[in-house]
């Protein structure tokens, strides 16, 4: 298990990505899987900064990585605003260009990229996002 805390700023996205890539490599994931995990984590952390914290400089993100023989697991913790993922609409794939909004693919993508994505809102002052990638 390896854990690191980053300031909730967009400039942390690069370092978080490196941290995750290293851990995933150590866990033996292949290049494509590592990239998928990096991408899912980037989307998750961007959401934490933008939506949970409502902007940069308002809190921290704790990243924790763990692996066993079957999978690589990531936990992201924040102390920001909680939300209900079930109410978030799935983005329309293949819509005409002009009718595309200009955002809203992060959650969808995280689910596409990872084998399991689970928000834990059981503590009122902390959100835990758990994501798993099979080896």
């Amino acid at each position: 298990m390896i854990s690191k805390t980053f300031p909730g700023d967009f400039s942390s996205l690069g370092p978080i990505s490196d941290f995750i890539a290293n851990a995933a490599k150590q866990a033996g994931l292949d290049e494509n899987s590592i990239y998928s995990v990096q991408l899912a984590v980037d989307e998750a952390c961007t959401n934490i900064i933008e939506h949970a914290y409502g902007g940069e400089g308002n809190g921290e993100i704790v990243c924790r990585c763990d692996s066993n023989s079957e999978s690589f697991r990531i936990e992201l913790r924040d102390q920001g605003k909680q939300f209900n993922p079930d109410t978030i609409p799935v983005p329309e794939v293949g819509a005409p260009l002009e009718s595309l909004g200009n955002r809203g693919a992060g959650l969808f993508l995280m689910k596409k990229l990872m084998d399991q994505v689970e928000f834990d809102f059981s503590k009122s002052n902390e959100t835990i996002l758990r994501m798993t990638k099979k080896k």
Partner: protein
Amino acid sequence: MSITTSEYKRCNLVKMTGRIDSSTGDALMKTFKDLQEQGHFKLVFDMSEIDFMSSKGWWVLIETQKGSKRYNRGEVLLANVPDKILTSLDLVGMSHYFQVFDDVVSAVGFF
């Protein structure tokens, strides 16, 4: 991270290096917006040295593509898209909105 632009007779080339994420995406957006404000809508984006692109990057490209295609005045072409980025673009049907070229010469030569 660096962003370089080059002007050719019929198109402008934008090359960025490093990551495109929420930390760097706005600089790229500004580059494209500035070009479009100067009347340049035929654009080639060289991704050969991009090693990571989050959905922030896609929205920048989509936004730019919208601006370029409006009134049929141009188009954004992607060149040298790294395989793993192409795969992730496909995941959300993003690659549908862009012509992808194997190299910059072919993209510039397309206009």
